[in-house]
């Protein structure tokens, strides 16, 4: 009875609008991340040490940079599965063009980024001017790019990393923060700002949540699509360079499977396949959840195969916890339009 009497004073509409601002949705994955870190810390003190945590961010950087691009594409209602292939191609091309000469670094990186952007541009044109599914289109691009990479590399690891290249990126600033980790965090911050404050960023959300309204509002959806996929290709190439810097690997399939790691990070972070929701901030949290999971399994001394098993379980549990936290809000407020669930994949 007493709760019934209090209800008018707390203004349900105000609560609903606060909930609808997406606060719970945006922060749920961070709650999951903190909880997972807490659990991890029970198993190993390493998870409380800043140097270990920053090293983890360094590990995550190649997938993370690519995941930023995938987030932008998915907010717009698309998807990009070609990033793993582009990462591989970029690592090979960068290593081959460097050819062990420090003087070649600038030109090698510029050429690599251009190639990544070109593949993204091709994806964007295919998606914008065709009514086909970006899921399959970009999967097709991925297979084609893997083929190209194999032809280019001759099927083996090729290229020589220039001296100083890896040293620079793995240098720890102040003995603590690796340059690579810092660059990834900087890229994520810039992307989050672009997405939140620029006209381009806001347009992505409009096109993603209601493409027809976006078109009627005068947005050039096709141009936006091409721009976003180009960005995704560019960022994936950057991810390839980051991979080369992190591990020195430049073989055909160096980035194979990264597209799913990136996708898992993006979806864990609250960006949906239907578009119009989520953002780069959530992706960073989702990515860290994945890498804390990978590291936890590793630090427990389990072999790689058991790692896959446990990582799978953690992905499911973390995702379920996240869904639980966010769906409570949905059922409580009932203000969210339900067209997402009735039209898209459930």
């Amino acid at each position, binding site marked *: 009875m007493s709760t019934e009497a209090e209800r008018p004073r707390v203004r349900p509409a105000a609560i609903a609008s606060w909930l609808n601002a997406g606060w719970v949705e945006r922060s749920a994955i961070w709650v999951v991340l903190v909880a997972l870190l807490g659990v991890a810390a029970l198993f190993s003190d390493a998870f409380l040490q800043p140097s270990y945590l920053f090293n983890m961010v360094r590990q995550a950087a190649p997938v993370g940079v690519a995941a930023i691009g995938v987030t932008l594409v998915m907010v717009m*209602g*698309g*998807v990009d599965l070609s990033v793993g292939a582009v990462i591989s191609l970029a690592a090979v091309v960068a290593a081959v063009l460097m050819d062990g000469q420090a003087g070649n670094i600038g030109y090698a990186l510029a050429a690599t980024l251009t190639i990544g952007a070109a593949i993204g541009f091709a994806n964007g044109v*295919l*998606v*914008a001017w*065709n*009514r*086909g*599914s*970006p*899921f*399959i*289109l970009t*999967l*097709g*691009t*991925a*297979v*084609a*790019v*893997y*083929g*190209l990479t*194999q*032809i280019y590399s001759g099927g083996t690891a090729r290229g020589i990393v220039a001296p100083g290249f890896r040293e620079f990126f793995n240098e720890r600033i102040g003995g603590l923060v690796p340059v690579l980790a810092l660059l990834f965090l900087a890229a994520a911050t810039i992307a989050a700002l672009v997405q939140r404050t620029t006209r381009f960023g806001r347009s992505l959300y409009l096109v993603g949540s209601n*493409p027809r309204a976006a078109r009627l509002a005068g947005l050039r959806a096709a141009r936006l699509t091409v721009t976003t996929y180009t960005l995704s290709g560019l960022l994936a190439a950057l991810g390839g360079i980051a991979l080369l810097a992190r591990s020195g690997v430049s073989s055909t399939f160096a980035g194979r499977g990264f597209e*799913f790691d990136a*996708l*898992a990070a993006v*979806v*864990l972070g609250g960006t*949906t*396949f*239907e*578009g119009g929701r989520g953002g780069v901030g959530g992706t960073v949290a989702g990515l860290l959840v994945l890498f804390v999971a990978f590291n936890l399994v590793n630090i427990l001394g389990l*072999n*790689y*195969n*058991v*790692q*896959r*098993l*446990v*990582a*799978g*379980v953690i*992905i*499911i549990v973390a*995702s*379920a916890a996240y*869904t639980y936290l966010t*769906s409570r809000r949905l059922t409580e407020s009932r203000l969210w339009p*339900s067209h997402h*669930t*009735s*039209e*898209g*994949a*459930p």
Partner: protein
Amino acid sequence: MRLTDRGIYWVLATVLAAAGLIPEFRSLGNLANVATQSAALAVLALGQTFVILCGLIDLSVGQLTGLIVVLVCDVAAGRDAMTAPALLLALGLGAASGAITGLLNNRLRIHPLILTFGTMSVLQGIVFTYTDRSVGRAPAAIAWLADGRLLGLPVAPLLVLLLAAGAHVTLTRTRFGMHVHAVGGGRDNARRAGIDTDRVAATVFVISGVSASIGGLLVAGRLGVGYPHAGAGFELDAIVAVVLGGTSLAGGRGSVAGTVAAVVLGGTSLAGGRGSVAGTVAAVLLLGLTNNVLNLLQISSFIQMLVKGLIVIGAILVNQPGGRRAFA
């Protein structure tokens, strides 16, 4: 039927006509080869057609196939007496794995892509913890199923035809088939119409799991040994086949015929609810055909990969109906 829905058949016809110019291709033995080699993928794609029609997706079938290949060969170890237990093990494991995925899907409400990405990872961990090298040997009966002949005709393609016919009838003539389309077309509306959407979802995952069982048996029979890497990549090929066969990734549209065409050619739309078994079969045939033709022309596997990617892009350009959403 829209023109775009038939795109897969046009592409298949074109590739067939082009392939017909190669003398080696026209031999009956080679045609039987294409059909036999495509059989496992076709079965997986048939299962995936149900899942994608329902607006869901199952990434775990590839690793499940690998697990079944390893277990069947290890348990049987070439002994014919173990054929029946191995068969039961394969079918039971596939169905159980599908039922667990279905249960998790209904209870946890995670996006199926994430859920089955997780189960895929778990299954992969199990396969390679079990063994990281080839083990056991397939019994003769399972080898016959994959590579043998019945009245002069290859057995595996006959099995695929039988399963495709069953899948087609199930999807177009039964209440369950209608429910799959309804759930894929709009889950909320289906629920309001009184359909037990959770049961439909669980059932399609079980069907997908069993398709991995049969696919695994065919792969085990063809390889002869329990090779742990046998299932890698199958899930994507199966999805590509289903989408190319005209089934929509958004759910609700699709057919067995399209799936078969796609598995030949690789055309179901990822939006779910659209597509056909025939399309999938056509797409599978297309994929198989392309491999075969490129092999006959002695083109390097690197270039084959590039060509395969371009074919997927080409097929989707002519074939995919619907909007430009991720899963449409």
